[in-house]
């Protein structure tokens, strides 16, 4: 393939602008679709990974009631509750060597409204917890301090808030840090703001900054009553490889402590295995999207073949003239093959532009992440499609006998 045949091919493409444009559109859509859909798959994988990471690394969450046990009625597991004593037992380094930290969380009864200076807003998550929450959940403060173990044991009336809560009270332009040291009414009680959390953004399901964290002792005193039960335990394993053993230890200890309970009486969610499952699902999803797009690329290729067959038929006489003045078989072959490849290369380049452009937009709640491999792959496939679907029409042109081609009307 040389400059000469590229020029000839370009002339052929330009001579039928409309037809060439429509053919290229087929390839454009195919290549663009591959790039965008693979980017959506990758974006959705990133989103799940981020939302799982936001829960803290190497963590497991433990709550009462296993999968599928909700309304089976009457069994004791329904009444089973995780207690402070359970938390203490799981913290025992001898029985549970793979557990590094145990953090209780208590969800405040019903929705809680925050109010200050006449402004008020419902808080997304009103959580009672311990001082370890900040480290385990990966929730450091931006300004002020997190509450301490002393605050927990003293039942201190303090609160650490997320930026959304602050903004709801101050308005979008207000400085969240200005609330530090100020009393804010949470439901029926006034709590002093001692810290503002670093912004985390949305995890795709909820706003992680619409949160208020309070010592769990204070929550029991003022909101839920002192029942000695815990909504959810956050357990941090001692390392990346320890989440599996930690999960076993949790199940063993809790089953031993609660008579008549089974492995299904507790729900233990392992972040690592969730991530694995999510990744596997995402891969399937990406492959599926990619193959749908690849099919449209194939259809685009058939379009190239169709148009090349038309072109060869239309230009039979021209082929005859070229042969009469000395074009060899290979020259005719390369002319039409170049034209087919050029059509798909141009379509492919436009498709890459469209794919990258289209990936800038949020698609069904996912921000696509363009994958360079998908660009290279889609483009290479487009070129291959041009070659493959161009060969038949081109060789048909090349094989024409000069006299038959010249006589063609």
């Amino acid at each position, binding site marked *: 393939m040389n400059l000469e045949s590229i020029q000839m091919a370009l002339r052929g493409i330009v001579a039928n602008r409309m037809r060439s444009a429509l053919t290229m559109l087929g390839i454009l859509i195919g290549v663009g679709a591959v790039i965008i859909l693979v980017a959506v798959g990758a974006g959705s994988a990133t989103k799940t990974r981020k939302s799982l990471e936001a829960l803290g690394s190497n963590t497991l969450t433990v709550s009462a009631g296993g999968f599928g046990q909700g309304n089976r009625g009457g069994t004791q597991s329904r009444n089973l509750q995780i207690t402070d004593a359970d938390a203490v037992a799981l913290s025992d380094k001898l029985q549970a060597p793979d557990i590094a930290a145990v953090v209780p969380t208590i969800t405040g009864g019903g929705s809680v409204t925050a109010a200050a200076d006449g402004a008020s807003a419902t808080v997304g998550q009103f959580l009672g917890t311990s001082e370890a929450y900040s480290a385990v959940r990966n929730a450091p403060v931006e300004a002020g301090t997190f509450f301490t173990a002393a605050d927990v044991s003293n039942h201190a009336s303090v609160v650490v808030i997320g930026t959304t809560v602050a903004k709801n009270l101050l308005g979008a332009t207000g400085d969240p840090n200005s609330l530090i040291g100020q009393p804010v009414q949470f439901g029926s009680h006034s709590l002093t703001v001692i810290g503002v959390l670093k912004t985390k953004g949305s995890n795709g399901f909820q706003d992680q900054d619409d949160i208020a964290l309070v010592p769990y002792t204070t929550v029991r005193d003022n909101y839920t009553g002192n029942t000695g039960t815990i909504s959810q335990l956050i357990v941090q394993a001692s390392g990346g490889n320890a989440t599996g053993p930690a999960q076993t230890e949790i199940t063993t200890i809790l089953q031993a402590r609660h008579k008549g309970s089974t492995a299904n009486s507790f729900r233990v969610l392992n972040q690592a295995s969730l991530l694995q499952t999510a990744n596997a699902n995402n891969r399937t999803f990406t492959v599926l999207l990619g193959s749908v797009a690849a099919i449209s690329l194939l259809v685009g290729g058939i379009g190239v073949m169709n148009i090349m067959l038309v072109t060869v038929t239309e230009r039979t006489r021209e082929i005859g003239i070229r042969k009469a003045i*000395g074009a060899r078989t290979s020259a005719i072959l390369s002319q039409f093959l170049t034209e087919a490849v050029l059509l798909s290369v141009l379509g492919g380049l436009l498709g890459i532009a469209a794919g990258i452009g289209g990936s800038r937009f949020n698609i069904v709640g996912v921000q696509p992440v363009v994958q360079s491999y998908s660009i290279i792959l889609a483009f290479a496939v487009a070129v291959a499609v041009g070659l493959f679907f161009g060969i038949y029409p081109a060789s048909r042109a090349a094989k024409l006998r000069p006299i038959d081609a010249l006589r063609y009307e």
Partner: protein
Amino acid sequence: MSKSAQTPAAFAEPAPNASRPRPPVIAMRNVTKTYGVGDVEVHALRATTLTIERSDYIAIMGASGSGKSTLMNILGCLDVPTSGRYRLAGIDVSQLDGDAVADIRNRRIGFVFQSFNLIPRTTALANVEMPLVYGGMKRAERRELAVRALTRVGLDHRLHYVPNQLSGGQQQRVAIARAIVTNPAMILADEPTGALDSTSTAEVLAIFDELNIEGRTVVVITHEDEVARHAKRIIRLRDGLIVDDTRYAPVDGLPPHASNSLEPAS
């Protein structure tokens, strides 16, 4: 692709009287061409034997359907005979493969057709360059040759016109420029003036006379006496057979109706 040595000397005049005996340009023996089979069988050419010497100027005449075009297609290696032997400049063409025959058409033969057969939407210059492209010549060199060929047929002011911007006579002159740009020894023309008015016809015939004076073999198919009288030898076909073959001027002489400006060398 074998790049033949395309000499830039497109208009160098081959010696009219070669001292060394060379094979005739065309030597046909018992060539036949049959189209179709059975009931629809057409014997377009029957046992034709024909020898054409270098520098001859031949008119092939005959009624429509008498086999003139069939004969020319075989002479020009565009078609293959059903039987018989055909040697072009001593080479048995039937022994060659498609690409070798393409090379022969490219270097040794220049075609001129009744319907011009220029490539549409392509400038006169690009059309004339095309045989040189297939001959593998470099861009600058072939551009120069193409411009010279177009200048020679009087179209140096129409280099960048596409065929549908040119008159019939101009298109045919572009086609002639394309035929001679590779400096072929033989020009084959199938009713080259059939679609032209008398002025254009005269122009084309003057060019053919010149090409023949240069020493090129010219074979013109025609049914017009006015065209045929420029030839040194007239062959008449009827039903695929040569029925008459008369010489009107010697092979190495001048064409009998060479334009007045060309003084016969005595």
